[in-house]
């Protein structure tokens, strides 16, 4: 990349991912503009950035979701491109369109692709046509509870009802018997209307005891599509990923390869551009089915970076600037195993309630083969306004067993303390020590089953990010 890409990029996000993106810009010699809400005046990315713009008060809807303020901030600072990170505006096709209309490059897929894949029923249809395995279910939105009932009879129970505009584990209900379908349909529809402003639902067969495996793809504007292998994200709590790893353990090579092929085929089918993730559910028999496609950077992208050596954010920026991919599929080689643990400011003893407060002490782990992505520092006040992700700890090792012991070592030396502050550090260590995890026999039900062994597992294998 000898050609200058952009001279200035605005990072339309906060927290660890804003810093992550800012670091990539800095390494590319690109000036970084941070935007911040009133709650984030002293944030790490504000301290890091070349310039910062105050875009609104603490509530996200008035700051990190405030499109006019963000677009104006880009204009005022001369930013030629906006990186949306994950969450917030990262999957908003309208925002991508507004940027394009304003001559600002949106670092992500084209608005039309985001629009198409954001409609989960439509994504299901398009990908099914492209030959990707989808679970038996509806081909479009359901018109009535009666239609849902007929379909459920055909696919067999359990089934899952999902909001067409949902995703990320919200707006979905598992139905285990015909008697429960009608009320589930009505409730899910009401919920979808309230939350997404779109009450359309669709229905799929539901798979118990499944694993969550996703494939990372990178696609440039000239149509090159490569995958960067897969990640297993089966350790979840209420659809929130907690631990991710690459490669997926305990998965036959032919299954892994078939998933890679499926993701590449899917990306080609819609003319995907940028970094994207194809999320699959994998059954105990190693059958896999597409769940959804995420048109953005994932929280867990570092595990892929550590096994491939590829800086995914750097590639996103390069692709957005119109550069062709600097490598082909055969250049992508995966080495060893990488594991990520999300350290949240939550209190496991109080049902993982957010536990914000000032970080009097904050000493992240270091040393061999440990990477920490965090926006926290001593004195930083974890606020109540945003998600509770405090730090991502990532370890690499030649094999899975060493990656796990290394992670346990890293978490053991992570010091976080402050009045009111609690973290998931110990909970994560307990999870890593679970026999099912150690032997890679776990499914998305692991955490729920560990917490309450007698409760029937009802986890849905779809996380927020």
């Amino acid at each position, binding site marked *: 990349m000898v050609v200058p890409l952009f001279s200035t990029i605005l990072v339309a996000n906060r927290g660890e991912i804003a810093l992550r993106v800012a670091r990539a810009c800095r390494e590319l010699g690109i000036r970084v503009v941070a935007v911040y809400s009133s709650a984030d005046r002293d944030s790490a990315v504000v301290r890091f950035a070349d310039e910062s713009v*105050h875009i609104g008060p603490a509530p996200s809807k008035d*700051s990190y979701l405030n499109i*006019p*303020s963000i*677009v104006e901030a880009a*204009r005022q*600072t001369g930013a030629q491109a906006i990186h949306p990170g994950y969450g917030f505006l990262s999957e908003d096709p309208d925002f991508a369109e507004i940027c394009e209309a304003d001559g600002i490059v949106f670092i992500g897929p084209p608005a039309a692709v985001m629009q198409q894949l954001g409609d989960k029923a439509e994504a299901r249809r398009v990908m099914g046509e492209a030959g990707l395995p989808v679970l038996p279910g509806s081909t479009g939105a359901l018109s009535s509870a009666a239609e849902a009932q007929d379909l459920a009879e055909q696919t067999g129970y359990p089934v899952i009802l999902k909001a067409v505009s949902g995703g990320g584990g919200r707006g979905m209900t598992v139905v285990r018997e015909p008697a429960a379908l009608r009320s589930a349909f009505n409730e899910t529809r009401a919920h979808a209307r309230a939350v997404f402003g779109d009450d359309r639902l669709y229905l799929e067969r539901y798979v118990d005891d499944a694993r969550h495996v996703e494939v990372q793809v990178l696609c440039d504007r000239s149509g090159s599509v490569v995958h960067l292998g897969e990640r297993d994200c089966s350790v979840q709590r209420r659809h929130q990923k907690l631990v991710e790893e690459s490669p997926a353990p305990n998965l036959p090579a032919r299954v892994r390869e078939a998933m890679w092929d499926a993701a590449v085929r899917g990306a080609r089918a819609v003319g995907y551009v940028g970094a994207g993730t194809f999320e699959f559910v994998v059954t105990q028999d190693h059958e896999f089915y597409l769940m959804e496609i995420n048109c953005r950077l994932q929280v867990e992208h570092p595990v892929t970076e550590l096994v491939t050596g590829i800086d995914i954010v750097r590639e996103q920026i390069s692709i957005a600037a119109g550069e062709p991919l600097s490598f082909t599929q055969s250049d992508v080689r995966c080495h060893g195993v990488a594991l990520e643990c999300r350290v949240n400011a939550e209190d496991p003893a109080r049902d993982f309630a957010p536990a914000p407060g*000032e970080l009097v002490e904050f000493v992240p782990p270091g040393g061999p083969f440990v990477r920490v992505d965090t926006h926290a*520092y001593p004195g930083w006040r974890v606020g109540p306004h945003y998600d509770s992700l405090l730090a991502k700890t990532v370890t690499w090792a030649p094999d899975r067993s060493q990656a796990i012991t290394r992670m346990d070592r890293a978490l053991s030396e992570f010091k976080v303390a402050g009045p009111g502050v609690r973290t998931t550090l110990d909970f994560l260590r307990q999870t890593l020590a679970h026999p099912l995890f150690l032997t890679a026999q776990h499914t998305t039900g692991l955490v729920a089953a560990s917490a309450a062994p007698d409760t029937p597992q009802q986890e849905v294998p779809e996380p927020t990010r």
Partner: protein
Amino acid sequence: MRTDDERPQNSPETAGAGTTDAEAADASGTGALLDAVCRGLAQLARSAPEPPRRIRLQDGQASVEIEWPDPLPGVAGPVPVVVTGDAEQPDEPMNDLHSFVRAPMVGTFYHASSPDAPPFVRVGDLIEPGQPVGVLEAMKMMNTVTAEVGGRVVELIVSNAQPVEFDQSLIALAPVPVDQEV
């Protein structure tokens, strides 16, 4: 808008001067915070007509309280001093007696509704709460900026057609004595 030029760097040049170094530490350290608070307190105590009787300072779990003996009878009563946790934003160009009309979002601030129109307000004007005082353009939408409180315009801090960020002070208002109220 903050630029990196304003922030101290860990360079030998700047780190070479003891003060700059201490400022660099300020960014995070509680010690520096306390220094600032203590300085502020001392000023407050000096500026008040009477010495304080009790000062209580709290930061997280730590707190300090100082109490002075009761003044002698016949001498004026104690003056309550309240120290709140968050310091005022230091970037205010005016003293605390003024209030400010602030930018409700990021955009470009205009004094008038169009290049030919007269400005909404001029220095010296008395304005009422809710009165329009300018427009803020963001993404080609014109948003009317109104004053939340009334007062006399003492300064148009932001000149016409200047970009502003959220919460930036646009206009300074002096409070109006009761008998002068509009």
